[in-house]
């Protein structure tokens, strides 16, 4: 269950804001929707996890308090706060670590062996 990662991303996204008034409210709703999206992705592995259930209820409360719509843009908090200056932001913004076989594989062991299959002709 990666709920703490979702929490951290949300706090990072909302802790640095140079805007005020309506812009800040809009940013907050965007961050909340991203938070809800992140939490939904963890749902299967977080069943019974107290932090997960707190987050689900917390998000509902916050969305209601800020009058946020459930539909609308979702930010990628990491992208907004820290990746703009990184040269590999494109690579990092296209999914979590588990969606990059080579990156996640290298963490655990030696580079993978690849195999090939082909079919052609008559």
């Amino acid at each position, binding site marked *: 269950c990666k709920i703490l990662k979702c929490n951290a991303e949300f706090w990072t996204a909302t802790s640095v804001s140079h805007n005020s008034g309506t812009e800040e409210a809009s940013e907050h709703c965007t961050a909340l929707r991203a938070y809800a999206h992140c939490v939904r992705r963890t749902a299967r592995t977080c069943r019974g996890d107290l932090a997960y259930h707190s987050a689900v209820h917390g998000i509902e409360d916050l969305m209601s308090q800020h009058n946020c719509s459930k539909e609308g843009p979702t930010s990628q908090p990491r992208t907004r706060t820290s990746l703009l200056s990184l040269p590999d932001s494109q690579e990092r913004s296209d999914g979590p670590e588990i969606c990059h076989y080579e990156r996640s594989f290298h963490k655990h062991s030696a580079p993978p062996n690849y195999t090939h299959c*082909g*079919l*052609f002709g008559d």
Partner: protein
Amino acid sequence: PHLRTFSDIFQTCKVKGAWPLIDNKYLYVQVTNSPVLPQSTATATSKLTIIFKNFQECVDQKVYQAETDELPAAFVDGSKNGGDRHGANTLRILEKAPGQHVEIQARYIGTTIVIRQVGRYLTFAIRMPEELVHSTEDKESQGLYLCLRGCPLSERIDFRTFRAKAAENEPAIGGSRPPVSAEGFTYESATAKCKERLPVEDLYFQSCVFDLLTTGDVNFTMAAYYAFEDVKMLHSNKEKFHIFERTGDLTPGNSAPGR
């Protein structure tokens, strides 16, 4: 069609109709092969179906389908990536040449697939991590999948016997035997044609000669050429690009020609 399995076994097969190439936890691939000529046992691939299975927070289940004269650069639902999830862009379709060459990159499983239409038929090539290839859910049905186990014995074509007969039928100087191919290819002219694109006399070269003799269709020269180009791009071991021995159906003392 000619099959090069995950363990670098090279076979020529009949496999008429629908046959599964791959089925593991992540991927399902099926081909449909049609006879290249009426009453011929030789077939070629006219349809291809690939299913990328739903994977964690990365991709939705996506189906790709190609048929002769319809090589789309999108999944059947019209999308070009893995859906709406966070890692959706780790599955994507790239159109290399419209209607002729498509590449599918599935980075979440470290896999690349190349599909081409050459002449009237399709070619398929895949690079996949070894540990995923063997990750089947149903261990008992592993034997069916051609990329993993090769073609069943009853489905194999004895390529070498065919070649020997073709060479025997070659008219001697001043002789009067007819050429083998309906389109006029003799063993000698087929060999010369294939050598233009495949200078090394490996099994890609030999399969090219076989195809010209069975069909007379010069497009098969290009199919063998591109199949070898795909091997060069996708195979991880440079030493194994060429295969010189037919490991699947050799009989003792009947080895393939050398370099």
